[in-house]
Structure formats: C-alpha cells, structure tokens
C-alpha cells in the first residue's frame, strides 16, 4: 500500500511539473523557427488566391489571430475580434475616426447652443435583417442598456459620469436627443462607435453577455452572420438590403489562425486573402511572387519611452537623456522601413488635428546632452530600462537606447520583464525602474490623453505630478471653441515636452497584407480596431 501511495504521490508531482511546463510554453507563442516560412520566396505562386468557387460566389477570407466567440453583442463585447464581428453585423449611428465623422444610421447631428444637447437625425430607410423597421426606439433601447450599470457595458463610463448620466430621449420615430450633464467637447466622440441592437430581439434579454439571442444576431450591417464554427471561423453572407448598398463580395470569412507563422504561410499560399503582419514578417515575404499588396495604415498609436519622475526628479538630467537619443535611428531599427511609421514629436499621434510640431523636439545633440548632464550634477549616471521581453519592438528599441545613451556617457542596464508583471510594477510609484516603454491608441479627442498625465490619473505610469498640467487639461475639457482648444492643447504639448519625462518614439502603422485580386481597400477605409470601416465597399476580381 505504501508503495502505491508513493507512486501516486510521484505521479501527482509529475503531473504538476508537466502542467507547469505546459503553462510555461503556453505563455509565449511557440517561437517557431521561421526559416521554413522565410525561404518561401522562390515559388512562383500564381494560383487564384481565395477563389473558393462554390457556385461562383466570391469569398473574402481574412485571417484573425483569435476567436471572437459566439456571444458577440453590442453591449459587453470589447475585444478586437469581437468588435470586428460586430462591425460586420451591426451599424453604429456614426463612426468617429481621425478623418472626422462618417454617418451610418444617423444622417446628421445638431448641437444645441448650450453645447449640452446633441440631436441625432436617423435614417428612415433602414431595415433589420429580419425585415423589421429600424427606428429611434432601437437607439434609445441600446443607449439605455449601455448606461445601465448592471449590464457592465463597455461604454458605460462614456455615458455615466460622477456629475450625472447622459439623458437619452426619443423625439420622434427618427430623431433622438442625447443630453450631457456638463459641457464636454469630446461628447460627439463618446457617442460614436456604439453599435445599435434591435429592441424587438433583445427586449426580454436579461443578461446581454450570455443568452440564446446572441448566436442568431439580427443587425443592420453590411453582412449577416451565417455560421460560427468555434476556433475555426466566422462566416458572413451579404445583406442584400444593406442601407448603403449591397456588398459586392458574397461571403466574408474571418478565419481564426492563432499561430503567426501558419498565418504567414497561409496568406502566401492563397488560403486567406488578408492578414495583419509586422514589418519584420512582411520583410521576409516575397510579395510579388505571392500576389500580395501591403497597405500600411495609421491607427494613431504612439509608442513612447517614459521616465519614472519619481526616481529621476532632475529635469536637466532627463533632458540630458533625451538629447542623447536619435529617434529616427530607433524607429528604423525597430520598424525597418520609413513607410511603416510616422515620427511623433509630442504625445499626440501625428494624424491628430491637434498635433503640433512646434515643440522642443530633442533632436540628437551630444554636446547639449553633456551640458545638461553637467548642469544636473549627476556623475557616473547609471539607469535601468525595463521592457517587455516578448515584444520585439520594445527589445529592439531598448538595445538602441542603451547604445545611444552609452555614447553620451550614460550607462543603461536593460531588464526584460514579463508584460503583465511589468505593467503591474509600473503602477507602483516606488517601482525599481528608471525608464520603461508604453504605447497607446487613445481616442481622437485630445482630452482622452489626460489619463496619462494628470496627477494620479489611471495610466500615469511616469508618476508625473505637475499641477499646472492638471489645470491645463481641465481647461481644455471645458473649452468649446475649437481655435481656443487647439491653443490650449498646443501649450500642453509644449510644456509636456519641456518637462522631459515623455519621449515619443514612433507612431507605427498597422500593415494590412491583401491579395492583389481584392480592390476597394481605399473606399472601404482602413480604421483602428475594425480594420475596414465599411466592408461593403470591398471588391474581388
């Protein structure tokens, strides 16, 4: 008996070890030896990509890296692949991206004189995919569900504020008004990208994130969900009654391919028509031979290095660091090709209308760096730079920064850390790192950036504490005059650069690789998160 017990105990231990091993390798993607996929240049693959000729119907297959799941709904779904699915099935009132407002279910918005009430005029020619008419009731129903705390909707904090909640009112069948509790210039953006669900379907649903209705969605989008195969794909067929005109491609498929190397081979072999790659992956591919085109597009992401203001309090020392850096060289090393990035000079992405170049740019100047270093009185400077070890962009940037600062006489120790652990540590003001990286895709409105810089703000990982900045952000939020707002945010950008805590590195673009027989990419507009603003405009030869 004892022997058996020992045996079982040994197995127990062994199983824990085995499982531990599994978890360990599961944490990172299997770092496949890419040689197999790399040398794929030679083959002249010119078979018709994606012509899944099932009765002459055209099918567009887009490789995505994760499963959207069967419970996609407009209230709680907030992950990228879920939102991409929602964009196919449902329509928002309007989309608000860097190029401005694009109307979908709404035709126009009137703003009241007191800048509190926004009146949305809706289209009266829209039908749900089950034939029911779309009306203001659906809009009111959706916004009310979103503003109900118990539903835990993703946009809750955009509709309910400490000062009160947005008032949602139906004026007539095709007019809805939304009233803010206080003046906020970002309101139009806050109401955007909220997709409208059908009241007649969801009326009696108690739990939006989990119910039977979610699996048979009824929407107003360009496509209708036809089939969801867990872990494999989501298939959509075109909505002939789409209010902006029936899509030209019959079927649209999101094919789930989690492994990057497999996805890379699949796009080259023509098994999928579109895929998102990194510059390094795209550089490995022979685009001509595989009949592919790359569309780099700006998502408004800013990658940056931050200095922990809690540890390096001396502004001169921080400036010495900034003057030693060469932004262009870092971006070139990390992103390979200038067409894959823009260089930001402040915290705003260069495609923002509030972006200004009229700031201290800290162009590399080793003499200045040495002057500031001398002025700071720091001798034998030694810094710790923490980075996410599994992110190739961050590790390349870290090495470049180490090398550049070395030349200015500043020694940098690199610490590669697990992404989650690092972000947990960054939140603590007494974390042991002097510098680390960040990256964000914030909203279009400049106020969305305040959460990075205001004292004690949720994303203020620099532990930046300048009361003057808090005041400026508060002013910008209340100001409704565009010209004056622009002035305020220009000042903010300038002052922020002058305090030398935040070093914008690059604004990297997302690279959409598409087979050459697909056209209409420009017309369908490439946008953050959803990729295509309107898939109905895509065409296939």
């Amino acid at each position, binding site marked *: 008996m004892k022997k*058996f*017990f020992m045996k*079982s105990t040994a*197995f*127990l231990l*062994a*199983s*824990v070890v*085995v*499982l531990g091993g*599994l*978890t360990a*390798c*599961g*944490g990172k*993607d*299997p770092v*496949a*030896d890419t040689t*197999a*996929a790399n040398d*794929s240049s030679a*083959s002249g*693959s010119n*078979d018709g990509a994606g012509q*899944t000729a099932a009765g002459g119907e055209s099918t567009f297959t887009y490789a995505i890296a*994760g*499963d959207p*799941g*069967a*419970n996609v709904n407009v209230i709680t779904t907030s*992950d990228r692949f879920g939102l991409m699915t929602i964009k196919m099935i449902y329509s928002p009132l309007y989309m608000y991206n860097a190029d401005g407002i694009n109307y979908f279910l709404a035709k126009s918005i009137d703003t009241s004189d007191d800048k509190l009430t926004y009146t949305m005029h809706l289209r009266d020619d829209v039908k749900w995919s089950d034939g029911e008419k779309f009306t203001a009731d659906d809009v009111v129903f959706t916004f009310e569900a979103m503003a109900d*705390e*118990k539903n*835990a909707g993703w946009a809750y*904090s955009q509709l309910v504020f400490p000062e009160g909640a947005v008032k949602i009112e139906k004026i007539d069948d095709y007019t809805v008004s939304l009233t803010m509790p206080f003046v906020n210039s970002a309101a139009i953006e806050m109401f955007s990208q909220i997709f409208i669900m059908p009241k007649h379907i969801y009326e009696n649903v108690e739990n939006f*994130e*989990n119910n039977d209705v979610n699996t048979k969605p009824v929407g107003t989008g360009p496509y209708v969900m036809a*089939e969801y195969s*867990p*872990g*494999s*794909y989501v*298939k959509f067929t075109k909505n002939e009654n789409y209010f902006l005109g029936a899509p030209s491609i019959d079927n649209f498929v999101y*094919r*789930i*391919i*989690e*492994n990057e*190397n*497999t996805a890379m*081979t*699949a796009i*080259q072999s023509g*098994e*999928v028509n579109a895929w998102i790659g990194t510059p390094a992956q795209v550089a490995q591919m022979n685009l001509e031979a595989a009949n592919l085109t790359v569309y780099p597009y700006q998502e408004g992401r800013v990658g940056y290095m931050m200095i922990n203001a809690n540890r390096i309090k001396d502004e001169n020392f921080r400036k010495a660091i900034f003057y030693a850096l060469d932004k262009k060289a870092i971006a070139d090393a990390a992103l390979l090709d200038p067409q894959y990035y823009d260089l930001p000079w402040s915290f705003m992405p260069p495609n923002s209308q509030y972006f200004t170049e009229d700031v201290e740019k800290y162009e590399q100047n080793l003499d200045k760096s040495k002057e500031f270093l001398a002025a700071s009185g720091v001798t034998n400077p030694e810094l710790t730079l923490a980075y996410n070890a599994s992110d190739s962009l961050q590790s390349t940037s870290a090495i470049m920064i180490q090398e550049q600062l070395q030349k200015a006489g500043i020694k940098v120790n690199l610490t590669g850390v697990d992404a*989650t652990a690092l972000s*947990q540590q960054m939140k603590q003001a007494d974390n042991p790192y002097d510098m680390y990286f960040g990256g964000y895709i914030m909203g279009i409105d400049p106020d969305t950036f305040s*959460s990075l810089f205001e004292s004690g703000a*949720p994303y203020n990982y620099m532990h930046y504490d300048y009361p003057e900045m808090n005041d400026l952000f508060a002013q910008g939020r209340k100001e409704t005059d565009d010209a004056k707002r622009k002035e305020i945010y220009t000042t903010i950008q300038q002052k922020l650069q002058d305090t030398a805590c935040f070093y914008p590195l690059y604004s990297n673009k997302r690279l959409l690789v598409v087979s050459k027989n697909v056209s209409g990419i420009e017309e369908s507009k490439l946008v953050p998160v959803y990729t295509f603003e309107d898939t109905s405009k895509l065409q296939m030869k």
Partner: protein
Amino acid sequence: MAKYIVRRILTAIPMVLLITILCFALMHFAPYNAIDAMTTPKMSPETIELIKAKYGYDKPLFIQYLRWLNGILNGNFGYSIVTKQSIAGDLAVRIPNTIKLVLPAYATAYILAIILGLLAGSHKNKAADKVIDGISSIAIAVPSFWFSMLLIFILGYKLKLLPIVGMHSVGKEASMADFLRHFIMPFITLTFTFLPANVKFVRSSTVTQFSEDYVLVQRAFGASRGEIMFKHVCKNVLLPIITRLGMALQLLVTGAIITETVFGWPGVGPYFIKAIQGMDYPIVMIILVLSSTLVILGNLLSDILYCITDPRIREMG
C-alpha cells in the same frame, strides 16, 4: 482484487481534491486576477465592487473555492472572462476535436512503437536496431512546432497538396474527404511526436527481457528465436506497455496543444493558449484541473489494468 481496486479508487479521490485546491490557490496567487481583466482603470470603485459581487469575488477565499468546486461537480464550469461564453459549452465542442486528432495519432504511434521497439530490441546492436534507435533519438529532440512548420512548408506551401489551416474548409463540414485532407499533416506531426519515446520504451524493455535468465534457459533447451520472442518475451514486454496506455489518458485533452495551435485545429490547444495569453483565468483553471484529473485517473486505470493482466501484482495488493 476488487478490494485492491476499491482502495486505489478511494486514494484517488483526495488526490483529485488536492489538485483542485492547488489549481485554485496557484491561480489566486497569480499577480493578476479575473477582476483586473474585467475592469478598466476608468471604472469607479463602486462599479468594480459591483462586478466583484456579481462574480462572487467579494466572498472569503474558501467560499469562492467551494462555490467553484460545487460548480465543477455540477458541470457548471463557469464563463470565460473574455468571450463571456460557457466554458463547458466551449469544451464540449473542442475536446471532441482534440480527441479526433490525438486518438488516431496515438493509436498509430502505439502500434508502430510496439513493432519497431520489439524489432530493435530483439536485434540489439545490429543494423535495424541502430537505425531505429538512432532515428528515435533524433526524433525525440525534434520540436513538434518545427516539424509541423516543415510539413506546412513542403506539403502545404511548396507542393500545394494540402490545406494549411483548420479542420474543414468553410462550408464543407460534412465532407469526409475535406476533413482527411486537413487531418493528414497534424496527424503525421502527432504520430511523429508520440512515436520516439514509445519506441525507446519498448526497445529497452525488450532488451531487458532478452537478458533475463529464462531466455537463456529457453535457448539452452533449443527454443527457436521466434518461439522465445512471441511466447515468452512478448508477454513480459507488453505488460508495462499496457500501463503506458493509461498514463496517456490526459493526452486526449492536452496532448496536442502546440500542434493544434500551429495548424489552427479548433481543439483545446488554441483555446488554452489564448486563455493564458488573455489571462482568462476560469478557462486556465478548468483545463488544469481536467488535465491533472485525467493524469490521476490514467494512473488509476493503468494500475487496474496491471492488476488484471499481471497475477503477481494481484497477490501483492
């Protein structure tokens, strides 16, 4: 014997309970929890409290554990934090897919391993043995993801013989031919992954048996090589091999994690990996518990099989 089996089953129960406690505790001490995944820094503390209460995270730890355990026992595995789907429902789709892939591959590898292992073991240090043992040694060191990428590159990309991703082409769920075309590459990879360790096991077991005294005695009596092999050695070699079968039980869930991920096979592998990356704790916990429970059950099974097939053990019990 019945007494022995009952005793083995009874010892397995606390083991499984221990596993659930271990999994729950490990997840609890992870640097990040389910609440962090569900809330954003923008939410007010009240909202966060509300979400905590909704999912029962405001209760003391042991209550949380008991609720969770109670759920598992009743088949309610909870919901994914990321996709909000029922985990039991997801697994009901994914485990069969994994079994479809692992079972044929393991069976093939198992039968091949017995044949090759016996062949190699009975011809120790001869050409056949050197080739089989040599190849197994190399194969044991070949990572499965690399091997699968190689297959994808040659069969899928260069020669364009087979589709690269998934289990079916879109809209061809009913077509067996389409399934088989998708099945070949992951099947070869898995067979190739399971094979070498089993071959080595059978080989060394055969070699040991051949060096036993009874073989020498048989030889002295003038028994032919075939007689010794099939009448005597085989029986003794196959005994430990049967127990290996039980220990392979957990492979039905977690046996193909890497291979499935590479081929985009909609089984447990990609689901598990995605859950780990997305810090979808409920899923990770359930799969850990499931897989470790199967390890215990597998060992229980192999002990019982051993007991049935080997009278010597029966007497010891």
